[in-house]
């Protein structure tokens, strides 16, 4: 009884408000390099947060820390009120609730497009193959690659592969989606087809954390823009505020460089 009460207290005190993703005083070092400096960051349900910043600012590390692909040195990360557990079964369960889309797609090279999407639901959630196939086809249709289902990843273009990767993540019915520079490895003409899918997803109310250089996406779909530099969150504002009236010199500098090219 006391334990239950204690756990209840811990749960309610750790997560302020209705934050779905919450980082408290998170620090990480790579050897000497302090890549995440005392990060405090909350994302509410349904919110779309774009993380931008110069390369090496720690934005990818932040994104990967949220589903513990990167471990942190100290601080707390919680998803939907649950602290990220140590590596193991429990962490695997939690990761199933956090979809992730990578810069390099990372589709399973030896599986067909359809199998890429159904593998998680079948093996992790124990869904029947028939049901998983049906869901997967609907998702593949939704991202516009339904007719590619029997092919292998290498037979698809980068833009198509990335859309499949989004479908694969969505198939787990995640509470939040992380995008780690999803368009950085794509040819310019393929970027928009991926962004369109993401914008659609944002409209449907998915909670999203997107690390990107696509300012157009930030303006169009983001509720908040978080600007990082040297491992710190320097600004956290609405897109309108951030792009028209950045407060810090780092952000002004960054934006001016974007605009002059």
């Amino acid at each position, binding site marked *: 009884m006391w334990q239950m009460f204690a756990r209840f207290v811990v749960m309610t005190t750790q997560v302020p408000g209705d934050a779905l993703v919450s980082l408290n005083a998170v620090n990480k070092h790579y050897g000497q390099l302090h890549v995440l400096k005392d990060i405090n960051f909350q994302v509410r349900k349904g919110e779309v947060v774009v993380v931008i910043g110069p390369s090496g600012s720690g934005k990818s590390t932040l994104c990967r820390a949220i589903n513990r692909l990167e471990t942190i040195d100290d601080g707390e990360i919680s998803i939907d009120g649950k602290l990220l557990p140590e590596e193991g079964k429990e962490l695997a369960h939690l990761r199933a609730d956090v979809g992730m889309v*990578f810069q390099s797609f990372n589709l399973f*090279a030896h599986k067909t497009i359809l199998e890429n999407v159904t593998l998680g639901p079948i093996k992790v959630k124990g869904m029947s193959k028939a049901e998983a196939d049906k869901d997967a086809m609907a998702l593949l249709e939704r991202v516009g690659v339904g007719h590619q289902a029997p092919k*292998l990843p290498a037979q698809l273009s980068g833009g198509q592969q990335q859309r499949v990767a989004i479908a694969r993540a969505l198939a787990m019915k995640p509470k939040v989606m992380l995008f780690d520079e999803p368009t950085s490895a794509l040819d310019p003409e393929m970027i928009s087809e991926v962004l369109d899918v993401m914008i659609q997803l944002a409209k449907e109310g998915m909670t999203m954390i997107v690390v990107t250089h696509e300012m157009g996406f930030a303006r169009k779909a983001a509720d908040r823009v978080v600007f990082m530099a040297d491992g710190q969150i320097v600004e956290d504002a609405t897109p309108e505020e951030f792009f028209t009236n950045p407060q810090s010199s780092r952000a002004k500098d960054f934006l001016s460089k974007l605009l002059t090219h």
Partner: protein
Amino acid sequence: MDVIIESLPQYWDGFLRTLFLAVVSGIIALVVGTLLAAARVSPVAALRGFSMAYVEVVRNTPLTIAFFFAAIVLPRLGVTFQQFEIAAIIALSAYTAAFIAEAVRSGVNSVPVGQAEAARSIGMTFGQVLSLIILPQALRTVIPPMINILIALVKNSSVAGAFFVLELFGYGKQLANDHGDAVMWVLAGVAFFYLLITVPLGYIAHQVERKVAIAR
């Protein structure tokens, strides 16, 4: 030449026994070797240490030592067998497993790290990531070195002939003693029957390799 025709029954019996030794030891070695490789990349330090120590010791000592150990030391420790074939199978599979483990490990390292990250990010456990994503891709890339190891296993099984197991090489020794005037032909016959196993193995390797190559 006549001696080969005359002794075909012995050759055939020896051939079958060699094939049996190689197939059984090969299957055990593939399983044990893959498990050793899995242990080598596991998050548990003790497993990694054990796998590394095993591979280093076994890979770097002569096969004859493994045979002595299986045929002479193990029975003294209370592990006895009815036939020396069992000892031969233990020695051959334990020895070959070390090489398989190294081949599989190199295959695991050749799979891009993003594959494992993607698998973990959809909630797979370590065992699932390894068995569903990493190993299937790793094993395909290591088929050529793996077949080399299996060819070496077929030839290594001849050491069993020196440990009272009557296989192809054992029969060869017997026939050479019986036909002192035709030793060359006796050995040519032995070589032919080894080639009968190893050459098709190489051919299969080539075919399988073409079929399962993964495009990235």
